[in-house]
Every structure is written in C-alpha cells, then in structure tokens.
C-alpha cells in the first residue's frame, strides 16, 4: 500500500499547480458532460414527444369519433408525423380517460403515460421528463467538481464519492429510498464540510497574529483524530437519524422528535468538541512547548488566546452551518411523508413547522397593603406560630418572608382556579398582528382537576370575545389546543377568553363539572404565528453559536493557566451548571437543613444557598435564552434572544473569561525550570 500512499501524495502535490487544475477542470467537465448530456438529450426529446402527444390528445373527442379518439380506443396509439406511438396498455385505459363531453380531462398525465413507454429504459423515470432538472443536475455536479478542484479537494471528493456512491446506488437499485437518501446525504454533507472548511481557511489566510493562530487551529481541528471522529460521526449520524424514528407515530411527532434529537445532537457534539479542543490546543501547546515558537514571535499572549478563540468560533460556525442545513433538509424530507390524518397534517404545519409567539393572561398583582395585612392576620391567628416567634425558635423576619411568599402564591393560584360551574375571564394582549394577518391563533391549555386522573374527561366551555361558547372535553394534566376565531380579537389586539368550568348549553344553562379546575402559570396561553420555521431555526442556530463562543472562551482561558484535565473539569462544570441552572434553582431553593441541625450544617446550608445560588443565578441566562425546546414546540425564538445569546453570553461573558484567564496567562512563566536542562 506504500505505492498507493506515495501516488496519492504525488497527486496531491501535482494538483496544486494552476495548470494541473485547468486540466482537471476540463477533464471533469468532459466526464460530467459525457454522463449527463445523453440523459439530457433523451429527456429533451422525451419532453418534446409528450408535448406532441398532448397536442393530439387535446383534439381527441370520442363523441365526435374523430380519428385521434378512434386510434386511442381501438389500438391505444396516437399518430405523430406518420408514425404510431402507444401500446396495448394505453388501449386498456383509453376508454376511461374520456369524460362525459367526450374529451380527455387530464391531457398532460395521459400524454406522459403514453410517452413513458417510449422512454429509454436506462433513464431514471423521475428525471426523464424534466430536461431542466437534468440540465440543472449536470451543471450542479460539474460545478461541485470544479469547486472541489480549485479548492484542492479533488482527492477527498473522489474518495467520498467512491465510498458513498456505490452504497447509495445499491440502495436505490433495491428500492431502499430512505437509505439511498441517507447515504447520498452523508456524501454531500462530508463534502460540503470540506468545502466550507477550505473557504474558512482562505478567509483566515491574511497575515496577522490572530488570524494566523486561528488558521492553524482550524487545520488542527480538521486533522486531529478526535475532531475528525466527532465531526465525521455527526455528519454520518444526522442523515441516518430519521431511520430510527418510527413511521407509525403521528407525523408531527416524528418531525418534532427529529428536530429535538437532531438539534440536540448537533449542539452536544459541537459543545463537547469545542470544550475539548479549546482546552487541548492551549494546554498541550504549553506542555509540548510549541508555544515557545509562537510567543517568541511578535504575538502577545492576548493575541494568542484570541486567535485560538477565533479559530474555534469559525469551526463552530462551520459545524452549525453544515449540520444545521442537514437538519433543515431532513425536516423537509420528513414532512413530505404521508400524514396519518388531516388533523395530523394540519398540526404539523400550524404547530410545529412554524414560529409562534406566546401570550399569557395578564394577572393582577396583590396590593402591598393587602399583603401586609394578610401576613399580619396569619401571624395573629396562628397562636403556635406566635409562640414560636416569642420563644425565639423562629425568626420573625423569616416567618414574615415565608408568609409573604405563601400569600403571593395563594393570590396567584386563586386567579388560576375556577370553581365547579363558575367562570372566569382572562385577557390576552399583543394579538394585533395576528388580527391584521388574519391568521387564527391557538389556545393551549393544561388543566388540573380533581384527582388528575388521565382516564377521565371533563367538560369545559370557552367563550372568545362575544362569540358563542365552544364546548370541549379535556383530559386533566394533558396539553390541549383549540383554535381561536380571528374575529374574536379586538381592534386593539386584545382577546378576552372566558372559561366556564362546565358545559354551557344554549340559553346559558351550565352543567357544572364535578371538580374545580386550576392551571399552572404556563397552563393557559395563546400562541399566534409570527414567522416561519426556517427563520426560527436560523435563530436557534445563532443562539447555539453564542453559547459555543462562551464555551470556547472558557476552555481557552482555563487551559492557559491550568493543566488539560483540570481545565476540562473547570470548563465542563461551568457548562453543566449553566445548562442545568433551572433545575439547580429549584434544588437550591428547596435545600434546607432541619432547624435544630448542628451549626456547621447551618453554615453549609448558607454556603449552598449563597455560593451555589449565586453561581446558578449568574449562569441562568445560559439555559434560559432560546433553546431547542422552543424550536420543537413551534415557539418563536426572538431576535432579542439571539442578541442576548451572542452579545451577552458569546461576547460579554467571553470577554470576562478572557479578562480573568488572560491576565493570569500573561503572568504565567511558560518555560518553567526543568532541572537538568540548559
């Protein structure tokens, strides 16, 4: 195999010359033309034939018994310039193609059917009738080949084609279309990534410390085994992911599952790779002393770290762009699968492949004086509690604080509770655009009632504005949706929704439900379309990119002062705390030691709530700003979230990490004493 390696190396050197590339370009164009032109010519002729047949079919009239119609019915043929085109198969169906008026309804389809018999067997039926498509494919393939040649990717393109094309062709031949699409997708994705990388390298080619370091990091990322494994694994897995989604599920769940898994996989791999590479590239260069050769050039320590960060930012952009495009294309292909029902198809387009804003009811706030009075009354009426305060067992301030929280919660909950047979109205605002666009919003609700048994259904009625009530049955705990008529939205963009806990009959009679119902703060919301899925997806990718920028800065800064394993530990801890901050917030709130616990336990509690709570609070935006959950749910990720993610997390937090890590790195002695050396 040495000869093969040697030959490949020689070819790689040879293909860098301009003359060689011109030669390869000519060769590629010739080969592609040789493959595509015959197909295109056949396709052109076929389209011509279909057109001629169609013009004959338009004249055919079985009632008038003109020769065209007679030929079709008797022999299944049409006469074209003295020759007959058709077959016995056409005769079998010819009679049925004529309508009551004696003419043919679907002339183009029938013409295609007749012409299909004449189509060359070697030409794929899907393209033989579309010369423009064939021409486009040919130009596209030639363009890709020429691009590969001039970017120095001729060898990789050939390698990828040699590996994936036979597998894809075999899948196509055996009718395994999903596998065919998957393996074709793998080949395209791998090549696209290589092209994007080359373009990025050219973008980083200008002279300069930061661009130089970034350029080399990008080369490192595309040549080290761990990076290749992560990126290659991702680009191979993504096209195969739909194969692991059951086609028996409702289509909208299939698509949602793919979106969740696909975007989750992309971010997870990108985050893992970024963190690992950020720590490794700096820590190992310090350990292995390549950094000596860099920092003895006119490169400041800050420029060195900035270059590493820039390289990682570009790499993350490449991964998100290519993998994100793959997810988007796969969503389109998945959406083309047959839906189980009309409702399923409608739900897919209105609830999943959409960007919807969420409006929640405007709730009243408790009056501060009322709150104070309620707290005082609670203390006065509770003799046990009063006794504990007087005895010093409990602090009055703590008791008041707890009671305030309790009263506020009760006040809010009361607004979200409707007694059996009663009704309550809620006002939603911000629906002016929906009214103007004439797009019906959706009401989404999740009610709790009685024992919350999912085997029960209960009646509830909704009145939208002044419109007649709509009676529905709901299952407790489960999420339900209901369309809202556009005309219910007032001119100022507000919507009043009255919920009746029972069945509201004609004449206003109410058959009350057996239990009162209540819902959580996010249990009642109106969703209205404000954009498309593609734009929302782009924003989701930008949010992810912002987070990855911070992870990169974290890793690079930590590795500048810590060894590789410690840097990974620190960076990963911060990343995990940030990602899980919502859960940590609840955990910290609920963490409490018994009141009679020893003093060191009290101190520990204070530390957890103080330190951990603070860290969690600082890192909370990392999880809260736009997430893939919103994308899956068809909720809009606003541009404000993108600005927060990129501006706050990606840039400001990164700057903070660099300020701390960069300062420490600038003080670090890179070439430490090593005993017997020099």
């Amino acid at each position: 195999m040495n000869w093969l390696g040697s030959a490949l190396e020689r070819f790689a050197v040879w293909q860098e010359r301009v003359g060689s590339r011109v030669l390869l370009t000519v060769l590629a164009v010739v080969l592609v033309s040789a493959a595509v032109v015959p197909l295109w010519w056949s396709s052109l002729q076929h389209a011509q034939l279909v057109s001629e047949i169609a013009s004959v079919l338009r004249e055919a009239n079985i009632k008038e018994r003109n020769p065209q119609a007679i030929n079709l019915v008797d022999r299944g043929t049409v006469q074209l310039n003295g020759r007959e085109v058709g077959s016995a198969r056409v005769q079998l169906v010819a009679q049925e193609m004529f309508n009551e008026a004696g003419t043919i309804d679907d002339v183009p389809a029938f013409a295609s059917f007749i012409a299909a018999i004449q189509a060359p067997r070697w030409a794929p039926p899907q393209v033989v009738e579309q010369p423009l498509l064939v021409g486009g494919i040919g130009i596209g393939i030639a363009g890709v080949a020429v691009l590969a040649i001039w970017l120095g990717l001729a060898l990789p393109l050939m390698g990828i084609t040699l590996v994936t094309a036979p597998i894809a062709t075999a899948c196509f031949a055996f009718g395994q279309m999903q596998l065919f699409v998957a393996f074709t997708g793998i080949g395209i994705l791998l090549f696209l990534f290589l092209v994007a990388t080359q373009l990025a390298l050219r973008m980083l080619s200008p002279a300069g410390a930061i661009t130089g370091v970034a350029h080399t990091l990008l080369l490192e990322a595309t040549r080290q085994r761990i990076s290749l494994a992560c990126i290659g694994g991702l680009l191979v897995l993504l096209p195969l992911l739909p194969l692991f989604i059951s086609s028996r599920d409702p289509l909208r769940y299939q698509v949602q599952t793919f979106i969740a898994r696909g975007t989750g996989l992309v971010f997870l791999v990108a985050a893992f790779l970024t963190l690992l590479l950020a720590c490794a590239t700096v820590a190992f260069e310090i350990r292995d002393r390549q950094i000596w050769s860099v920092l003895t050039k006119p490169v400041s320590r800050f420029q060195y770290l900035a270059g590493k960060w820039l390289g990682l930012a570009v790499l993350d952009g490449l991964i998100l762009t290519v993998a994100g495009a793959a997810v988007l294309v796969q969503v389109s292909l998945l959406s083309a699968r047959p839906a189980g029902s009309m409702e399923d198809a409608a739900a897919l387009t209105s609830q999943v492949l959409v960007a919807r804003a969420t409006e929640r009811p405007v709730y009243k706030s408790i009056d501060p004086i009322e709150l104070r009075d309620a707290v005082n009354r609670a203390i006065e009426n509770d003799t046990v509690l009063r006794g504990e305060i007087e005895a010093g067992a409990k602090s009055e301030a703590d008791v008041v604080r707890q009671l305030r929280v309790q009263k506020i919660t009760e006040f809010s909950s009361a607004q979200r509770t409707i007694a059996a047979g009663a009704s309550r109205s809620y006002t939603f605002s911000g629906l002016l655009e929906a009214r103007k666009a004439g797009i019906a919003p959706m009401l989404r609700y999740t009610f709790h009632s009685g024992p919350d048994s999912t085997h029960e259904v209960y009646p509830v009625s909704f009145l939208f504005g002044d419109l007649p009530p709509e009676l529905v049955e709901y299952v407790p705990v489960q999420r339900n949706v209901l369309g809202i008529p556009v005309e219910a939205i007032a001119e100022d963009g507000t919507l009043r929704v009255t919920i009746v806990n029972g069945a509201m009959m004609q004449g206003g009679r109410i058959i009350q439900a057996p239990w009162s119902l209540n819902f959580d703060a996010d249990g009642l919301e109106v969703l209205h379309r404000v954009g498309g899925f593609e734009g929302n997806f782009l924003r989701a990718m930008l949010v992810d990119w912002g987070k990855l920028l911070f992870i990169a800065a974290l890793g690079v800064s930590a590795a500048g002062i810590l060894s590789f394993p410690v840097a990974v530990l620190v960076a990963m801890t911060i990343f995990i705390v940030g990602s899980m901050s919502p859960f940590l917030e609840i955990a910290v709130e609920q963490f409490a030691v018994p009141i009679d616990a020893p003093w060191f336990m009290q101190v520990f509690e204070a530390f957890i709530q103080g330190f951990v709570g603070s860290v969690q609070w600082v890192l909370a935006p990392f999880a809260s700003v736009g997430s893939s959950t919103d994308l899956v749910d068809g909720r809009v990720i606003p541009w404000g979230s993108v600005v927060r993610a990129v501006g706050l997390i990606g840039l400001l937090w990164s700057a903070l990490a660099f300020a701390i890590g960069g300062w420490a790195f600038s003080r670090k002695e890179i070439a430490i004493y090593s005993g017997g050396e020099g």
Partner: protein
Amino acid sequence: MNPRGQGSVRTVVEAEGLVKTFSDFWLRAKARAVDGVTFEIRPNEIFGLLGPNGSGKSTTIKMILGLLRKSKGRLSVFGRDPSDVSVKARLGYLPEETYMYRFLNPRETLDYFGKLFGLPRTTRRRRTDELLEMVGLEGAAHRVVGEFSKGMARRLGIAQALINDPEFLILDEPTSGLDPIGTRQVKDLLVDLRRKGKTVLLSSHLLADVEDVCDRMVILYGGKIRASGTAEELLRDTKHTTLHLPRLDAATISKVDAAIRREVGVAIDRVETPRQRLEDLFLQIVDAARAEQVETSGAMRGGPTAAFLGEGDERQPGALIADLERAATESKLAAPVARSAPVVRGPHMDTIAELQRADGTRTAKPASAAATKADSETVDKSVIEGLLGGSDNREPDGGADGSGARPK
C-alpha cells in the same frame, strides 16, 4: 570582556547582575539557575554561551526571549524589556529541541510563522521556497512534521528561525540532532549570516561547534560566568609553538631536533603524522554518493543561504576589512588543512627554515586528504617510534588541525 558602557558600540543584549531563581508552590526558592550574570552582545557578532547541562544557558536565553521573567538584575534586548512584543519582530529563535506542530507540513509551518510576523503572502511564499531549499527539505515540503526524523525537524526549526530575516538570531544547541553535513551547513550559515550583518547568540555544549564560529563567548557553570572573552583569548596556548611543514623524513626530523636542542636547549615534544578528520571523511563519502545519485528519503543537500537573508542591510564601517579578515579565517576552517607534512613542535622556527633550505625541502603545498592518508601509511614508523620512544609513550593526538600537542 570589555567593560560595559565603554565606547559608543550599540548593544543588542545587555545583561547586568542577572539572576533567575525558581520557586516552588510555596514561593520557597528551589533553584538558582542564573546567578549574577553580566554580559553584552554586540551587533554583528557571533556570541557563544557555553556550559555543561544545568549551567543556566537555556534559562538565560529564555529570559532574553521573555519566556521567563528575571528575578533580579537588568536585562534589555535592543534597548527594550524582553517582554516587549515589538522586540520579537527582530528576533529569530531556535529552541534546544524542535517543537513543531506535528500535523503541519514544512510549507504550512513556515507560512504560519510568517503570518505571525505579518509578512505578506507573496513574501511568505518566496521565503518559504528559499528556506526549504536552503535546509534541504524541499523534497519533504508536503510531508507532515510528525513523520520527520529529528534532524529533519531540526532543519525546519532553523528555517522557521529565519523566516523573518531576523537581526538577532538565538540558537540553542543548533547542531543537536544534525548529521555532520547539517552541522557543517549550520556553521557555514552562521558565518554567512554574520557576514550579512546579523548578530547570533549561540548556545551549545558541543565545544568544537562553538570554537569554529564564535567571536566571543562566556562559559557558565552553576549559573555564574566562569570565563569570558574571544576564542583567541581563551584558547591560545602560550607555552608551545606549532609548525606546519611538508612531510619530512626521519633523518631531517632528527636534524631539526638537534638544531633546536642546540639553539634553545629544548627538545621536540612530539612528532605527529596528522590524519584526516572524521568529519571530512564523512563528507567525502556523502559527496561521492550524491555524485552517484544514490536515492535517499531523508533531507537533501541544502542549498545556498536564502537570498532574502540580509537583503538591504546597511553594512557597518570597516566591514570590508572585517570581511577580508574573516574570509582568511574561514578559508582555514572550511578547507581541509594541508595534511601532507608532519607537525614539528618547538620554540625556534628559524632553525627549521634553515634546515629546510639546506636540504632543498620543498615548501608545503596543500595535498589531498587521500594522499595524506596514503602517505601516513607508508612512513617508516620505526624511526618515528625511535625518536619518540625515549620521551613519552603518549598516543599521537589526531586533533582538528593536527595541533594535538599537549603542554608539558
């Protein structure tokens, strides 16, 4: 070493009372690697930093480069603090081991470092081509460094140290890992660079390498300077005289010895038949193989010094005369020393000249090393041994130029 501050010579590096102490985590002093070192490096000289392992050579260099901070003392490079980034634009550095990126090939490596200096693309490309040819790596330009031998990586290290056409070149063990061909080329390169107006700091514990090229040197031990001066000052042997003569027969040697005894009352210490240096033999064999075009996958023969090095440098006053002087010295270093004559040691040269004229002995001419070797094999060793047998039984010293006499 000249006292600092005398005259108006601009210095490249000034160190005064330089100290470097390494501390442990608890800030306790662990090792004093450099202890009160004072020296200066002047423009357009090759300065040697010598010493055994652990003497503080590399630590001193790292302080000059800003990789380490000094604990005490003063240190300036081009009149600025070593940590000043702008100073680095005028430096080239070859570390003691070549720490290159294993995933880059030589072309990419040099392009990267060229970018760090802000060199435009066309300049980077041109210099890369010239440097790769100079160090003999043009055939391996597209192989990743991870596949290189130590010597090939070292050559690449030398190339990257020169990519920016530095004014001041710092070489830490430059010939480490190089074969004699590479070693000779490095020495020739250093001399060439000095001629082009560069300043070089050379650190090594291979004394033969340093002796051949350095103008001035300091010798370190335990972090302190033990000796300093020019090679001539440090190495001159004032107690002996060396004569280079064409080959003499035993009878003539006897007459010479008798004459010296008569004139000055001392005897010849030792008569030696010089032999070819192993380095020269090695180079001859390699040249012959290359002439026969034997294949090799290793480094190729290096080319001439890259043209861009020293382009446009202003020559110092008196440079022409200095060049001529150096050329005379270099011709001694570069060309094989005439090996045709036995070496006679003794204090009085006139007597010998008389004897030669009386005998009609031909004046020495440069002879080929092969001829020298052949001659040495045919001499009547019994006479020589007879001359030597009464004085001592020491082995003849086949030194670099035959000057293997040891002081009594």
